[in-house]
């Protein structure tokens, strides 16, 4: 069954047709062409499909498109206005926190909500916030340092 949706994606209201079985991830990737959000497992275990739903990170593969009402979706494409980069994106570049890059959009989205948190976050808390995003290339070290550098508002040592 098909259905016409009106949803807010990256600050814009878009009309999109979806099928009842489409997930938010399908809708973003296949219907709207926003392929920056990746599918690594399709069942909420890897975090590659993380987007923000009303400001909270969610696995877009676990949300049915028909569930969406008036929530605002932000994807990796909408985190900063091109050509500007979000400070986290810049930090991951500076610290060398991206390798194959497949998990990177999801990692950036999960980490982005930490910027709004009050008070100092320990390394453990940063790791906890990223524990839903699997990365197989980096060992997380440079990602964690990059995120910490943004939270502490100190420039990276990368280059």
């Amino acid at each position, binding site marked *: 069954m098909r259905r016409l949706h009106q949803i807010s994606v990256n600050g814009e209201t878009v009309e999109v047709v979806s099928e009842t079985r489409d997930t938010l991830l399908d809708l973003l990737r296949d219907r709207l062409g926003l392929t920056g959000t990746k599918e*690594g497992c399709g069942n909420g275990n890897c975090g590659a499909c993380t987007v923000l739903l009303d400001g909270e990170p969610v696995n877009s593969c676990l949300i049915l498109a028909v569930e969406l009402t008036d929530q605002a979706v932000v994807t990796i494409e909408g985190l900063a206005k091109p050509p500007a980069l979000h400070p986290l*994106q810049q930090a991951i570049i500076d610290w060398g926190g991206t390798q194959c890059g497949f998990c990177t959009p999801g990692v950036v989205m999960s980490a982005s909500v930490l910027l709004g948190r009050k008070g100092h976050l320990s390394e453990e808390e940063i*790791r*906890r916030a990223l524990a839903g995003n699997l990365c197989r290339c980096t060992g997380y070290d440079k990602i964690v340092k990059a995120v910490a550098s943004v939270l502490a508002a100190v420039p990276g040592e990368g280059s």
Partner: protein
Amino acid sequence: MSSAAGALNVVGKRVPRVDAKERVTGHAIYPADFSLPSMLHGRIKRSPHAHARLIRVDVSKALALKGVRAAVTGEDFLDLPIDAKAQVGEGGADMWYIARMNMAKDKVLWIGHPVAAVAADDPHIAEAALALIEVEYEVLTPVMTLDEAMRPDAPVLHDHCFTKGIEPRPQRPSNIGARTLLARGDVQQGFAEADVVVERRVTIDTVHQGYIEPNAALAQVEPSGLTRVWASTQGAFTLEIQLAVILGKPQSLLKVIPLEIGGGFGGKIYAHIEPAAVKLAEKAGRPVKIVLSREEVMLGTGPSPAAQIEVKVGAKRDGRLTAIQGRFLFDAGAFPGVGTTLQMQACANLYQCPHLKLEGFDVCTNKPRAEAYRGPGGTQTAFAVEQAMDELAERLNLDPLEFRDRNASVTGSPMVVGTPFPTIGLTTILDRVREHPCWRDPLPAGRFPRGRGLALGYWRGTSMTSACHIALTGDGRVMATIGAVDIAGTRTSMAQVVAEEFGIDLADVYVQTGDTKSVGFTQLSAGSRVTRTMAAAVHEACQDAIGQLKKRAAEQLQCSPEEIAYAEREFRSMRAGGASISLQSLARATMLDGAIVGRGVSTRLPLGVEIGAHVCDVEVDPHTGQVTVLRYTAFQDVGRAVNPPSVEGQIQGSVAQGLGWALTEYFDYAADGWLRNASLLDYRIPTALDLPAIDCVIIETPVPDVPYGLRGVGEVPIVPVGAAIANAIARATGRRQSAMPMTPERVLRSLRGSEFGKI
């Protein structure tokens, strides 16, 4: 040539990846992100039986479903001759097996073996069509363990598999593909001379590379027959060769276009979906994209082999080794061909020992075909031998570092295969460990027993061949096209080499990965070879281009090319009062005078063997068997770090994978061949929370006669991880570990004194 010792301006500096912005913004294109007009979606039907005869595959009902455009089965594929070789990697591959792995004929050999594929207007229709394919099987007894497979009365997977390496040739087929023997001296004599002898038997479970990007490919067949494949592969050329053989197509009608690859680690070398995608595209007359689900990745691709290893090592009271003996069984999965030789060499090469006997077996079982995973097989052999060495040191009351130092291989000492070692820095590494706080500082007491482990790792790596070409843009920038897929920041490192050789800024260099019709043949991005061999090719291409430019400059400056010196964008006549001409002017002139194209090929570069030493501290909860890694430090000789953050990233990522293997990752097979944990929930890859910070200590002992003295980097840092953890657990608890991963259950059982490792 910039010598290894010479001052360098760009090579060796910390630079951000040239493609990093695309990655952090979601703009990097992987095959699943790529679409073509009128594209169809392919799905693969897989066997639910681990071992069965394929009686009938009927796709007629699937084809009748609305929206289904094509279906293929084993009958659509050629019956290749046995032993059809293709030059994939150093040894090459038997394409009879690779073809059958991609689509079953006659027999299915593991749960997940493809038996048919369909293409439909959307993935849901394709999925529905799979259920309509009728397959009739005659179920056979599966062979799931190494012990079962090697029994004389075991069901045999392949009727034409006669064990290689045994004289005379066996009369009957078996599941043993090959037996390899590496021997020196007389081990019996060696053990007779020993004051202390240690024996260990270990098992290592199958693990998956765990790349986060599921395998994906898009194929398009033009009416002319020209076939384009957009792939996530570690080797565009080697994939093209496989397709040519499997599909019976000339390479002039094949073009593999490598897109970004979301991790490979050895698992994206062999074709798993591309032949089916091409056949479907050919039949449907429309492009076909296949994207595997995570479950299919776990069931259907090639993991790292399980192994069962028995080792025996002996030493004199002064710590000198007298003998190393080992019997190594590797689980090849459904098709023979798993390597044993390099794997056995890896665990013994760092020790000088007069008597050696290492015997390896390549054994088939009804599991997916084992493929490469980062230093393939080295982690397994190190888990056995490095534990035995640690125990030997303990029994001799020697510090484990001093014990290794006493037996350490140095430049020129004989390798396992007898040839002398090229320049290596093992003793330098050991010296660095000795003085480092991670080794020197006492281990602080904790709530539970703690221990510190040391293990060494060796990996040979390979060189093979790499090609590139370099052209100048009209505005004086330099553009390099390389034949290797970028799996580890290759474009960035090559941009550094170009910038170094031309004396220009990194921003004035563009490096691209070529497709198989735009650049010369280049072997796999694997075997720790890409940066070092491609750097040599790029170096040569730069010198070639600069040489051509010198000729042009000489004409302008009225001198001979030999009298031209090039530095920092200026070609200068060395004659008294000589004039100069800029790189930019010569580049501009190419638009009238003709292009400058520099050519670089590196072939059989001297090996850049990799050696590392890892030190870790663990805490073991005696109530649960849970192991917590408190601190991890990896020492590695890399020859020279072209881009240090990339080198650290390779080491940290390797260690992270090694820790997953050491503690939580394994394929959990039922007796009938079902993989019980084919998801990333049940197959536990480490998260950010599971890992400590991983410290890297980079040591640079250059390789002579290699541009910049580069060694391999990316494989060896996984090799010692399991052993380092096991040795730390032993130091904490007094118990040796006989199975990897060292899950809480297994560790707890070892602590309680029951038979080690058996769950």
